[in-house]
């Protein structure tokens, strides 16, 4: 049973944070049990933005359901679509052209950078620094423009289809991405100047929100939040998909287990994403951007599971097919949900003001948690 707002029998104060709170970036509702200023318990209440995406997908065909998944984790829409496209391709045993796979990886990494930049700006704003938000959005705008030119939209692109891509690259794509790489390499040092090296920022992040390696594993914390606790869980390295096995990059691991470690993982990951894009941008092979598919896609009877690394962690797509044109059941294993479950463990015993730093470094996207 949920505890009521007010004071409980032990004299602890029970308060709401959210669902409409500027630090929660959405409709996240936390019920906090406070002893003075010390957090005794954090209880997330979910369901405010539940749209039953899994159920919706059951009535959509294998071509149609991909666009819905852009609305789960809208900041890594491309990567969500990629997971769905891979699981349909797995079921149909469809060979995706090399060109499409390379373009997919470039798009995924651009999305990852855009997502991490938004996180960086928003997290710094939570902590109390207002300027970084504009710096982050300035560079993110460049990625949005690249996406707009090739995919036709800025956030919910729906660019991936089973068998490849919806359209070929825009002729300016390579030029613009190269310009972005040069620009971004300069700007990421500015980020360090503005925030990372700031002693006030470090003092607020260091030792805050400790999550041990064992806890990270047992809560299923994936992505940068898990790697900040030293858990090696990068799906791109462990179970490579698309062309990730052909590119050189480093899996970022930090052993600090605190908010600063999680912050550093993301900052360093942006540099790795740039490395991946640099390797691929000049080597996009010629050829088709889409494999030839039938007008109506049908999956054979069976179960298909795919996992990819989104900007927040491991996204799993589980399709159960009865052999028809629509899936019998779809289940998404979203990274945000598992990451949120660790918040209680992190926050117990720490001060109320540090809760924002913990939520910020978990990089919660609420539509991803609720689906």
């Amino acid at each position, binding site marked *: 049973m949920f505890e009521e707002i007010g004071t409980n029998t032990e004299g602890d104060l029970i308060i709401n944070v959210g669902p409409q709170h500027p630090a929660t970036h959405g409709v996240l509702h936390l019920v906090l049990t406070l002893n003075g200023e010390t957090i005794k318990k954090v209880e997330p209440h979910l369901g405010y933005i539940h749209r039953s995406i899994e159920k919706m997908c059951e009535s*959509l065909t294998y*071509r*149609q*359901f991909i*666009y*819905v998944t852009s609305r789960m984790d809208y900041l890594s829409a491309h990567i969500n679509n990629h997971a769905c496209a891979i699981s349909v391709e797995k079921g149909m045993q469809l060979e995706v052209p090399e060109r499409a796979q390379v373009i997919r990886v470039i798009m995924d990494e651009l999305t990852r950078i855009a997502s991490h930049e938004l996180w960086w700006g928003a997290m710094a704003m939570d902590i109390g620094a207002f*300027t970084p938000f504009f710096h982050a959005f*300035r560079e993110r*705008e460049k990625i949005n*423009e690249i996406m*707009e*030119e*090739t*995919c*036709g*939209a800025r956030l*919910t692109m*729906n660019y991936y*289809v089973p068998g490849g891509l*919806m*359209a070929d690259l*825009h002729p300016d794509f390579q030029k613009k991405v190269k310009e972005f790489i040069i620009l971004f390499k300069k700007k990421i040092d*500015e980020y360090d*100047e*503005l*925030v990372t*090296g*700031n*002693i*006030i920022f470090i003092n607020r992040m260091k030792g805050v929100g400790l999550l041990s390696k064992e806890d990270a594993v047992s809560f299923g914390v994936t992505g940068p939040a898990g790697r900040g606790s030293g858990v090696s869980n990068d799906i791109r390295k462990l179970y490579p998909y698309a062309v990730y096995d052909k590119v050189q990059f480093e899996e970022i691991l930090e052993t600090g287990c605190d908010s600063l470690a999680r912050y550093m993982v993301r900052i360093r990951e942006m540099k790795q994403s740039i490395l991946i894009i640099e390797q691929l941008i000049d080597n996009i092979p010629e050829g088709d951007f889409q494999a030839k598919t039938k007008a109506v896609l049908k999956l054979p009877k069976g179960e298909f599971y795919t996992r990819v690394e989104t900007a927040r962690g491991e996204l799993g797509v589980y399709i159960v097919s009865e052999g028809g044109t629509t899936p019998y059941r779809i289940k998404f294993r979203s990274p945000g949900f598992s990451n949120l479950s660790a918040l209680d463990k992190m926050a117990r015993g720490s001060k109320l003001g540090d809760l924002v730093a913990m939520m910020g470094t978990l990089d919660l996207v609420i539509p991803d948690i609720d689906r």
Partner: protein
Amino acid sequence: MFIVKYIKEVLSAIRSLLVGMRRTGYYFTHHKEIITEQYPDNRNTLVMADRFKGEVVLTHDENNEHACTGCTACELACPNATIKIVTKFDITPEGKKKKAIDKFVYHLELCTMCNLCIVACPTDAIKMAQTFEHSVYDRSELTKILNKPDSKIRAGIE
């Protein structure tokens, strides 16, 4: 010892603050690197990307002819029932009945711009327009009939 540590911390805080402020000051004096778009003022010069997905339109040529055969491929491809095609039967000069579209109803309020209808169209009759100012006062204004009055199907398209 404590006092030395304290002073050191204060000094490093001031230093990191100055480093950050230097960056802010740089942009304060370099206006050319600011890229804010003055949106409602630059409306006349604003160019959208040519692939930008604004809304679905049925393209008509100068003779008020379109290429839609009424095959409903787009209607079937749409995940949200955005498109509804009402067909009628035209009498051709030879006296035969021929299927043609009566109304191409498009619900912009349901559309998510997923581009699946455009891909599905076998005759390239529909395309995405680059408009984006879709605000209206009443929801019913968003339900549009895309074929123009008295428009016909272009000759030679089956």
